[in-house]
């Protein structure tokens, strides 16, 4: 194997710099009138519309069971929409075949509340897996994993077993895994949910640093102390619909704020 042959059947989905000019000016993610039913009478999402620009940092909030995770699952095609469309880089991902879903996910970095890292693997292995699936040569994997670990503040910790790491460090490993293939979009589903407030701010700052290099970040959380500390765009899912607050929670205009904060 020579060079940096990386399997990317959909160059279309590539992030930032490589995308063509007309692509860049379009929103990276658009949800059009999306419905998701788990029970026939009561949709979890009803007519959700959302447009996310390239390089945006977006908070998604809402009470427990509102459908934050569901919304993100529709984007990485863990679930399919029942009605409406989800456009990623202009492409309707609802119409992707099962075989193409992996190629969609190669353009996404996903981070969860429960870290989802493999305890009996080393830090390096946990991050490298995201590149191994691309059949990238080992030499390149090593340098890019080292780079990613440095970005999350774990430089030189590659050989350590992840079972010995603290919660905050584990989440940093998960973030490194998400960013190492340089995805266009990061989906974070309550990434600070299992961390104490101090660490939560650290992880949020980490995502903001990643965002500052041009990666779009969707950050789902119901931690309002976190949201109120920042001035990012904020959307709330309330009774299956998206309610928008452009200036962050501090300037939240709608009535939903009391139920959300309370």
């Amino acid at each position: 194997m020579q060079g940096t042959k990386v399997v990317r059947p959909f160059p279309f989905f590539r992030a930032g710099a490589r995308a063509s000019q007309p692509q860049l000016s379009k929103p990276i993610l658009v949800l059009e009138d999306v419905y998701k039913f788990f029970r026939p009478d009561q949709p979890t999402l009803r007519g959700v519309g959302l447009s996310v620009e390239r390089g945006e940092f977006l908070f998604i909030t809402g009470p427990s069971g509102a459908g934050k995770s569901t919304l993100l699952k529709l984007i990485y095609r863990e679930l399919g929409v029942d009605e409406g469309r989800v456009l990623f880089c202009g492409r309707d991902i609802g119409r992707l075949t099962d075989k193409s879903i992996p190629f969609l996910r190669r353009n996404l970095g996903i981070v969860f509340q429960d870290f989802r890292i493999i305890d009996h693997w080393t830090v390096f292995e946990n991050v490298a897996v995201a590149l191994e699936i691309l059949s990238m040569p080992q030499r390149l994997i090593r340098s890019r994993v080292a780079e990613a670990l440095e970005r999350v503040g774990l430089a030189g910790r590659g050989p350590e077993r992840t079972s010995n790491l603290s919660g905050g460090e584990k989440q940093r490993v998960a973030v490194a895994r998400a960013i190492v293939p340089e995805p266009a979009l990061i989906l974070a589903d309550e990434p600070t949910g299992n961390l104490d407030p101090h660490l939560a701010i650290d992880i949020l700052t980490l995502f903001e640093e990643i965002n500052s290099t041009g990666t779009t970040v969707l950050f789902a959380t119901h931690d309002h102390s976190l949201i109120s500390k920042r001035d990012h765009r904020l959307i709330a899912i309330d009774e299956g619909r998206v309610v928008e607050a452009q200036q962050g929670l501090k300037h939240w205009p709608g009535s939903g704020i009391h139920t959300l904060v309370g």
Partner: protein
Amino acid sequence: MDMKSAITRARRGLREERRLYIVAVTSLAVAFLCLGATLLGVTNLDAAATRWGQSGRITLFLKDDADPQDIAQLRVVLEGLSDVNEVTHVTPEQARASFLEEADVGADLSSLPSEVFPASLEVTLVQGVTRERSESIATRLAQFRAVSDVESYRSWFQKLDHLLWGARMLALGLALLVMFCVVAVIGNTIRLAVARRRQEIEVMKLCGATNGFVRGPFVLEGMFQGFASALLAVLALLAGYLALHESVDSTLAALTGSRVVFLGAWTLLALLAGGAVIGAIGSAVSVRRYLSV
């Protein structure tokens, strides 16, 4: 699919699940050992049948009142046949003596008169005469006036053929059974391995791994288990063969003049390759069923 990465991950899988896999390989090795032993039996029976079939023998029983001249003429004819190696005249006395010697019975039988035993010509055919040829010679010799009866050992060969057929069927049945066992045991083992690696599989899928990428190592692991089981069985069989063949050889040589042989190269290859292929099939089936990516 990237083979190198699949092999690396399969090796890690084999290391991590070694307890589980050792149990599977050991039990499957026992199954392969049964099959191998049966095949060894078939191989030896087959070799013996071929050897005996080629060292043909015909016994011409002579009429009690046969003219010595007819007998002499018959001998001349026989010795003239290119297929005949040697002709021996056995008189009733000799027949009785050899019977008593072989039968190893009490004194009451030794009072048997020699007239009970007919005189015969023992015809040894040259090496390599087929059974059909010896059959046709026997039919022609039955026409002679001095001959009362011809024994070409046909029924004996038929019995041997039946035995051989039975042994082959047994081997075939066992082969099918072993195949089923391999598919079932490896399939089950892989199912457990899949369950244990759920988390890793989920992570790989979230990162965008294709079905082939996720499934590849499991198929390789199943293939390795099948191969290892067959290899273990072959080695055990070889060890048994090397330990026993000398003592068995001497007994067998005294009894039948043949020696024990081990499984042929093709049979060995078929066992090992078959183990690997069926192992791969077993795990592929299992992975398809339990790993809906």
